[in-house]
């Protein structure tokens, strides 16, 4: 697939739609001939961004939407923007991501791994906060296409 377009998927900001997003991502990335492992990486990173939109962006009484746009930048570079129109991320630049490494069992906590995983699994992560949040994830295909 060449750099000829953007696919946009809009779903209700509910947990039950996140696997539909993963499936669409799979379809696009497989056509771009990303490797199995690269696709798994992207699935997790994109789901983390979507989970955050489901959990943190909207009031539970009034769920909004998640817009995911997939842009084929080059034949080997995919940019995925996950946007919500909810409350903004505060002080995004100050946020530090942390893992469980080097912690004791009493120090570890569930939660707070999402941003870390996005950064670890993608080549670039950019967060724009304005009216809502956009998380822009980019991955370059390393596996060579065998023609």
């Amino acid at each position: 697939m060449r750099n000829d377009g953007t696919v946009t998927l809009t779903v209700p900001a509910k947990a039950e739609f996140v696997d539909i997003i993963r499936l669409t991502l799979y379809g696009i990335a497989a056509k771009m001939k990303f490797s199995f492992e690269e696709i798994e990486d992207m699935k997790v990173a994109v789901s983390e961004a979507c989970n955050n939109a489901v959990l943190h962006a909207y009031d539970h009484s009034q769920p909004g939407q998640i817009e995911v746009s997939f842009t084929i930048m080059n034949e080997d570079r995919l940019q995925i923007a996950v946007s919500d129109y909810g409350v903004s991320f505060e002080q995004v630049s100050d946020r530090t991501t942390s893992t469980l490494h080097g912690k004791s069992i009493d120090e570890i906590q569930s939660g707070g791994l999402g941003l870390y995983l996005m950064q670890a699994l993608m080549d670039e992560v950019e967060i724009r906060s304005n009216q809502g949040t956009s998380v822009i994830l980019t991955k370059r295909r390393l596996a060579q296409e065998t023609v």
Partner: protein
Amino acid sequence: MQNEKLTFQTENLDGLTVVRIAGELDLEVASQMRSVMEPLVELSDRKLVLNLRDLKYIDSTGIGILISIVKARHSRNAPFGVEEVPLTIQKLFDMTGITPFLAASPNA
């Protein structure tokens, strides 16, 4: 049900409960996972093992649930671990640093 996203199969052996989780463990099924695991986590006289061989997907939601189980079992002084972890999932465990907390104690 075959069409279910996440399925559980529990096997009770001598002093050991093994739960096989198959499918996708994500935000949609997080509360289902918590409800199934809760009573098993409380059985502190039995060793608890999750078999992940047929788990196809996990993200920070699922890893968060595993952390809660690790902590709950630890506070009960009860052994917990995972087995047959698929490569793609092991990679996420290693990245997040949860791996050392998931090794069932060897003598249990």
